């Protein structure tokens, strides 16, 4: 029937092309690896860094390779409280990823729906929604997140709320642009002239076709969320001291940098960088692939 024997779904076509870029594929592998390790943290780490009773102060500030009193090797050293840095990194990543993904998904859903609704209805509704979005986007995300985190106090949900508030506007803006383009296309006119309900047209037809630019924004925003969360924790907001995320680990270790105990800050920092860069590489490939697709 056609020239395409192998891939049929748009996703499979996309995946085939994605695979051919070794850099992006490698980055994706790294991301998946890190996420898997982080999620499995409670089962694979030698120590639970959040269990204060397990920490041995004598083992504090030991360099990488040190064999601690509990009998295992601290591959990346210990921090000021005697936590195994490697365990702390994995737990920290776990927390970071949980929070960023939750915030990302909520921001995505909220923003995409708002943007699509604004584009679909047009007129005053569109003006109202988009002006609020514009207003919000004119505030730096960090400022917004800082203020909210300070107001709402510490904890996971206040942090997620702050992140969602800082980020949903990007999704809304992107969706609005894409949805406005799709809205005027023939297949939407055809669906409307059947007639089909507005809800069905927006959710079954417009939004799925807005996915390409949205996915690009999503990858960038998740990386931003991780960085943002780390920043907030670094500054003392966000999570409590007893559940250190990567940002807090880096903050805690800062004072020891000059005295030569670099491992307390550097290794969490490197882990953060690797994760963010890998996510950005994946996002770059996705963006490049989705662009020339316009000329099929």
């Amino acid at each position, binding site marked *: *029937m*056609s020239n*395409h024997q192998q891939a*049929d*779904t*748009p996703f499979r076509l996309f995946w085939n092309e994605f695979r051919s870029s070794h850099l992006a594929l490698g980055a994706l592998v790294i991301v998946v690896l890190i996420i898997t390790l982080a999620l499995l943290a409670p089962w694979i780490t030698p120590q639970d860094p959040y269990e204060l009773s397990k920490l041995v102060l004598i083992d504090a500030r030991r360099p990488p390779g040190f064999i601690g009193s509990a009998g295992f090797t601290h591959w990346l050293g210990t921090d000021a409280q005697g936590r195994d840095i490697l365990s702390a990194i994995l737990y920290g990543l776990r927390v970071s990823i949980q929070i960023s993904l939750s915030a990302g998904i909520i921001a995505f859903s909220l923003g995409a729906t708002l943007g699509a609704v604004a584009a679909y209805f047009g*007129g005053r509704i569109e003006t109202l929604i988009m002006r609020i979005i514009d207003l919000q986007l004119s505030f730096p995300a960090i400022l917004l997140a800082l203020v909210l985190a300070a107001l709402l106090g510490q904890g996971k949900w206040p942090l997620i709320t702050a992140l969602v508030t800082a980020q949903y506007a990007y999704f809304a803006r992107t969706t609005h642009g894409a949805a406005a383009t799709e809205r005027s*296309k*023939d*297949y939407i*006119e*055809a*669906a*409307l*002239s*059947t*007639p*089909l*309900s507005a809800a*069905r047209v927006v959710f*079954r*037809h417009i939004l*799925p*076709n807005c996915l390409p630019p949205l996915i690009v924004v999503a990858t960038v925003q998740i990386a931003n969320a991780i960085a943002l969360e780390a920043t907030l924790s670094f500054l003392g907001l966000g999570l409590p001291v007893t559940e250190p995320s990567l940002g807090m680990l880096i903050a805690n270790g800062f004072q020891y940098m000059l005295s030569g105990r670099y491992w307390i800050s550097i290794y969490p920092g490197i882990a953060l960088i690797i994760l963010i860069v890998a996510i950005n590489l994946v996002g770059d490939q996705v963006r490049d692939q989705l662009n020339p697709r316009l000329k*099929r």
Partner: protein
Amino acid sequence: MSQAQHKLIPNPVLLRVSEASKQFAPSLSVGDHIAALLGQKVDQRIVHAVDTVSLDLHRGEVLGLVGESGCGKSTLGRMMAGIYPASHGSIMLDGVPVMGSGKKPLKTTTRIQMVFQDPFASLDPRVRVGETIGEGPLFHGLVDEVGLKDYVAQWLETVGLPAEAAERFPHQFSGGQRQRVAIARALAMQPDVLICDEPVASLDVSIQAQIINLFLKLKNELHLTMLFISHDLGVIRHITDNIAVMYLGRIVERGPTIKVYDHPRHPYTRALLDSIPRLVTDGEELVVFKAIEGELPSPLSPPSGCHFHLRCPFAKEMCKSLVPDAKYHQSSDQSDQLVACHFPLA
């Protein structure tokens, strides 16, 4: 239905367009509103797409709507399909308005369906064609979940595609096949009227014949009432019973297709027919055509009086100021031909 039969057995009017007009005006921005409040004259660029059109579509009739781009035929088609509301006038299906009232009117009926020009753009690229075809009927209760698969397969077969096609995505089909899917989608709603907007214009020449034959089959076997919009006079002549010619938003001539082609009464119709390059099988010249002078005026500022007077070789003084009414031609065997011209051709 032959031309003689058409005159003797007038079918009931199914879709009636009465003095319908459509203007497009871009909405004023907040700045413009403020300027208007302060007393400034705000230039509203109004496009007069359709101007006081009256048209009757009879049951079982295939009516061709021809004209160049900018003449309003696509807009009129969409008004009749319930996509654009008329600014003035009315469009009724069996006496019931096609669109509701209010600021953002919705289509009130499923009995009119549309086939769009570009098969690449009129199908959702992310939805399997089976779902595209079955979506509307399922939503409106024409079929239930259980019978959906067979229902879709039946319509695919009607347009000449295999049942397995339902599982595929639009990009896996060729242009002609996609257009068949678009036709199946319209037919699956079991419409009384099919509005086809340039359905073969985007297709390759050798595929056009296939789709034209499909339309002929639909006309003969399903007795569908169709409005066939096209700028291709050859295709129109082949498929339609009657034809309406539009120029800059107005209908200038209407009548049985063969009669209008053989004896056009409006100077524009005559000029349009003459301007199409036609292969001739005899004579010195291989191709004959004669270009119309001048440019198509802009629908933003249509000429006064008869819209065609600036390009008409027969224009006289009154044509500049007086809009011609559509009148039935007086001579005996042309009594079903409507012309809007002060000096129709003999």
